[in-house]
């Protein structure tokens, strides 16, 4: 089963300290933001990580990328144990895994031009000559459907959807294998959201990318994912093929989540409201 897994996460735990005291801070306790999480993602596959705020889904993503160092557990990327790496070795592995942020407003440096933002990873990792880099930037922008003639403009001149394209182009600069997408469309309007989701689907096809797709919107996760893991209070409480998890959920919490999603059909909503009341009554009894 684990053959061909690009990413294998085993028993991942991330604790954050709870501190007290103003001048002399001391740690009084720990909270397990991620609590014994295990999953794997195969090449070219999308694993959707869905859950409500505080469920630990983003923290899991940051641990995978080693932006946060895990408290314990193992993260194996292409047969290398990331938690044991540091310095240059870690940097080299990080090139192959990139993050796309939620908020294209705050994640792009407002003082840098579009071209500099997209080209920065190439500069940092000293890829190619100046000319080659600038050609690569244009190619990347073209790939994500952003007019490459605007490389000298600044991010604030563009709409949310266009800014997210810039963020995706930057993430693709070093030709990564894995993209961790943290709520990539939740700040966007529906019509623009569809454009970005289609782009992500196309890019995955074209470049054989592997996605860890993190979002709170259950329908968005469904449209992107081969398999889905549902998180609650730091744990994966249910995981499996997308159609199985959504079609015949085993856990009460998953059923509650699904029943809470408003769907654009007034008749269906009537049924869902009744289903919700039943679930709430049965949860209250326990």
């Amino acid at each position, binding site marked *: 089963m684990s053959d061909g897994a690009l990413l294998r996460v085993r028993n991942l735990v991330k604790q954050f300290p709870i501190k007290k005291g103003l001048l002399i801070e001391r740690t009084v306790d720990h909270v397990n933001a991620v609590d014994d999480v295990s999953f794997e993602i195969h090449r070219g596959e999308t694993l959707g990580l869905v859950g409500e705020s505080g469920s630990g889904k983003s923290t899991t993503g940051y641990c995978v990328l080693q932006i946060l160092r895990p408290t314990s557990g193992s993260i194996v990327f292409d047969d290398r144990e990331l938690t044991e790496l540091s310095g240059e070795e870690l940097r080299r592995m990080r090139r192959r895994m990139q993050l796309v942020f939620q908020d294209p407003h705050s994640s792009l440096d407002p003082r840098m031009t579009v071209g500099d933002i997209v080209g920065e990873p190439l500069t940092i990792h000293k890829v190619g000559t100046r000319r080659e880099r600038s050609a690569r930037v244009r190619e990347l922008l073209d790939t994500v459907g952003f007019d490459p003639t605007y490389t000298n403009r600044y991010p604030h001149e563009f709409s949310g959807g266009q800014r997210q394209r810039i963020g995706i182009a930057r993430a693709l600069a070093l030709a990564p294998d894995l993209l961790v997408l943290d709520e990539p469309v939740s700040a966007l309007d*529906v019509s623009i959201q569809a454009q970005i989701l289609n782009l992500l689907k196309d890019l995955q096809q074209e470049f054989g990318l592997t996605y860890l797709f993190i979002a709170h919107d259950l329908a968005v996760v469904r449209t992107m994912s081969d398999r889905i893991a549902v998180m609650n209070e730091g744990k994966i409480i249910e995981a499996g093929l997308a159609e199985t998890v959504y079609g015949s959920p085993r856990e009460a919490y998953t059923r509650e989540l699904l029943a809470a999603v*408003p769907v654009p059909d007034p008749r269906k909503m009537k049924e869902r409201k009744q289903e919700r009341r039943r679930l709430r009554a049965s949860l209250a009894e326990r």
Partner: protein
Amino acid sequence: MALLSVRDLRTHFFTRAGVVRAVDGVSFDVEERRVLGIVGESGCGKTVTALSIMGLIPKPPARIVSGEVQFGGRDLTKLSERELEDVRGSQIAMIFQDPMTSLNPTLTIGTQITETIRRHFDVSKEEARKRAVGLLEEVQIPRAATRLDDYPHRLSGGQRQRVMIAIALSCEPELLIADEPTTALDVTIQAQILDLLEELREAHGTAMILITHDMGVVAETADDVIVMYAGQVVEQASALDLFDNPEHPYTEALLGALPQLEGDGIRQRRLTAIPGRPPDLLDPPEACRFAARCKYAGGDACTTHMPELRELRPGHFVRSEHPASERTRRGETVVV
């Protein structure tokens, strides 16, 4: 007679760059005890419409340049600030997306609720406090009496929105305007708040305008719906008719762009995105404002003049030269 009647409302922003026509000729009625959903994407004018009704638009730069808002036999656009203050809260109440910005962080929630009660009713402090406890119980906040002394930051987002609802309902308004009341909340909390709103509205006979970007929330909550695009109403119908038979190409496209929760081949399928984005309202085209993104427009009247909002069938209005049912009748096909 309708409870609230908005006629040809135009709210423009007079900026250094020019006049932004945020709301540009909007008309609708809200009937007693019913829920009108106003749905649209950011910048379509749905919030400015609500703020105009309440007299809460920032002046300057904004100004209601024309139109009427008839409520209880008066035109609200003609009232003085003093008169509006009496209407707000007691007859029309509003709740917003983020309760943290509408609650005062330095006052306990008890103080904030009793303040509102005493602003509108001549009651003692003790009586107001008693009513406040009753209200918190009604919005299902556990241990209501002790929660009164808490500050807003001690409450979760869902509980804060419950407090806002308690304040909004404290004066038994006839109309509640809810602007994206659940957008900042988790989906299970959203469901609870929407259920609560429905229970309370039914118990008190309150009418509601629900403003949202979420087609699912509209389908769940609204009796009647208007779809706004670029400052105008582009479609208006009962919720059932709108979702069963959407007519405007924008409404159709918006529904088509939504990812589905169930069905075959979801993962493989691309979504039907709407190309481009809404026009700049600084200098909107004299043509149909959706024409540039519409797959049915091209070379005909809608690219040169603004279509009227017309009644296609009883109760179903559309502002387009290419509504779905006429396309079917004409046997129009589209080359994508």
